[in-house]
């Protein structure tokens, strides 16, 4: 198992390098000039110096290397300093945003909790709803519950979050006035009242994201249960007189969860991607919102960093899914 894990970890490194190269090249080859916003009255030699100050003077491979160093060497040091109070990173140049002129990672760390709150709650809620639905739909295949569940998950698949989000705003905050349509990130949870308000403003974004998660995972759960329900060991379990609950919830469920767990792990980066849109709809001040803002403001270092963070999430959760699969199912370990 250890070799399996190490092999997977080693494979992740070139993947990350490739992705960072793609992102870097994409931004590099793009036409467009960070100096375009500078007034025309600024003389060319000053412009040239500004360009160098932004680190744009050197050839491409050197800049790529510098960016890698900044991202993989200096930023972790800053994090370590922040946590342990050391001073590894004193005097090092960090990735600076063109928009705010402050380190990109500081802004990201500021915004991350909002995204994590909304996305994490939505994912958890989605999974908790999806698993029972998937199990029961498979157990009573072609029953009315199954038919409705399949239809609802198909709808959840097909309705994009920018429509379902707007729709729930129309219904629940414009017409009924139950929930606020804008997520207030300045709200601090100090007492019961503000906690209730926090809960209230989280309902709509969380339910929109959770609908998608539920649709996906309940379908997987159902298919996986169906694969197992017709197997011989189920008949054996019933034949030796086990109760129906024990057969389904212990024997079948444990085997069916193997692929579902990997799907759950693989789905995490996707839901962060989906959160970009949901954050935009509900004005949640998270990293997706930050990305859109940075794109509109042409803030390339910020865009680069955020895109790369999304890539790291994908690689990380692919790794987790692989290892989880290896742990749960010894047959696929190849060692």
């Amino acid at each position, binding site marked *: 198992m250890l070799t399996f894990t190490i092999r997977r970890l080693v494979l992740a490194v070139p993947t990350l390098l490739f992705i960072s190269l793609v992102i870097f090249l994409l931004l590099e080859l793009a036409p467009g000039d960070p100096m375009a916003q500078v007034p025309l009255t600024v003389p060319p030699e000053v412009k040239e110096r500004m360009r160098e100050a932004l680190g744009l003077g050197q050839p491409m491979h050197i800049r790529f290397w510098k960016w890698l160093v900044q991202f993989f060497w200096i930023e972790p040091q800053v994090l370590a300093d922040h946590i342990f109070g050391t001073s590894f990173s004193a005097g090092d140049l960090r990735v600076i945003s063109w928009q705010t002129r402050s380190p990109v990672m500081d802004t990201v760390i500021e915004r991350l909790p909002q995204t994590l709150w909304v996305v994490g709650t939505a994912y958890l809620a989605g999974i908790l709803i999806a698993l029972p639905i998937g199990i029961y739909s498979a157990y009573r295949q072609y029953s009315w519950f199954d038919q409705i569940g399949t239809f609802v998950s198909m709808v959840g698949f097909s309705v994009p979050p920018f429509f379902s989000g707007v729709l729930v705003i129309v219904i629940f905050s414009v017409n009924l006035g139950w929930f606020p349509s804008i997520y207030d990130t300045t709200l601090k949870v100090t007492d019961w009242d503000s906690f209730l308000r926090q809960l209230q403003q989280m309902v709509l974004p969380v339910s929109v994201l959770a609908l998608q998660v539920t649709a996906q995972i309940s379908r997987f759960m159902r298919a996986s249960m169906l694969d197992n329900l017709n197997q011989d060991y189920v008949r054996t379990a019933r034949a030796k007189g086990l109760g129906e609950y024990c057969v389904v919830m212990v024997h079948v469920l444990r085997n069916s969860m193997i692929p579902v767990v990997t799907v759950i792990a693989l789905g995490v980066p996707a839901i962060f991607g989906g959160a970009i849109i949901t954050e935009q709809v509900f004005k949640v001040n998270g990293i997706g919102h930050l990305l859109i803002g940075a794109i509109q403001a042409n803030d390339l270092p910020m865009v680069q960093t955020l*895109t790369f963070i999304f890539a790291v999430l994908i690689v990380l959760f692919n790794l987790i899914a692989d290892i989880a699969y290896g742990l749960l199912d010894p047959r696929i370990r190849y060692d």
Partner: protein
Amino acid sequence: MTERDRAAPGDGLAPASTALPGGAGPLETLAGPPRSQWLNVWDRFRRHKGAMTGAAIFALVVLAVFAGPLLWPPDATLIDIRARNTRALTACFSEGEPWGWEGPAAAMSRFFAHIGAVAQCFANPETASARISWAHPLGTDQLGRDILARMLMGGRISVSVGIAAMLLALGLGSAIGVVAGFFRRLDGPLMRLTDLFLALPLLPLLLVMMLLFREPLSGAFGPERGIFILIVCAIGVTSWMPTARIVRADVLALKEREFMLAARSIGTSDSRMITRHILPNVLSPIMVSATLGIATAIITESALSFLGLGFPPDFPTWGRLLFDATDYLQQYPERVIWPGLAISLTVLSVNYLGDGLRDALDPRGGGR
């Protein structure tokens, strides 16, 4: 399986064998002419209710958006400022007195009064309290442009983007899948490439691509065509990976079959093997990913437009219409509903179509 299916099982039997000269004739009387594989597929597809409904709705949507200007002639870009902010005809349902409960008799009379008011409004919208007109069944936007015409035009663009991006992704995916499966030496590198592409964060990358290449492409091809090319290429380049994987797996399985060995032994060239023997046999997974590809492409395009990074405002797509309408969410919620419903309905129908196609193309699946 029906009686007829058993008599002529799919593609294996040569029909000539039933008419051996001097033989005793066919062992079983065939109920009709020999059936091709595709007829069987069609039979299975036809029995799938969801798929048939999906196919019908998708065909209807495509027909409506492409023949739209013939059915509904008003110009989508014509600004009629005097008719601006016309409500949709559905606003008629909120005509009449507000409802309340004051005993059954009062409720009955109120109900009929309401029906009367609604009917009156539909017959003669000019008398209604809101601005409603038969000239604009779905209303107009803040500049007085007819929303039905804009929906049709937007649908034309959205559906074209979906189909074009799907074709590009399909072409790339099947080419890479076939090459990776067929040539052992290229398998490793191409599949690693696919894995790498699968690890890319697609939505952020798409957004970045839109940001960076929008200006030069609109400069080179004009604003509309430039963005169209950009969106189609961006979606196509980032969505070929699942197709490539499925096609490769199928090609690998096909390569072990006897007919491939036979074809090889009579000296068939590689290119001929691919076009004659491989491609027709991997057609079914390609078709399934084609339908699902349209759905993803339409959603992705709408998402880009919704984030303000898609088509320019005077060139409406469903996503763009939805995005523009969110500013008027409180006063005119129906403007959000129409494009959203159109996107959802199209994607839902395509998803059902793909589902049914997958079941129909898999001969082991059996009827539902």
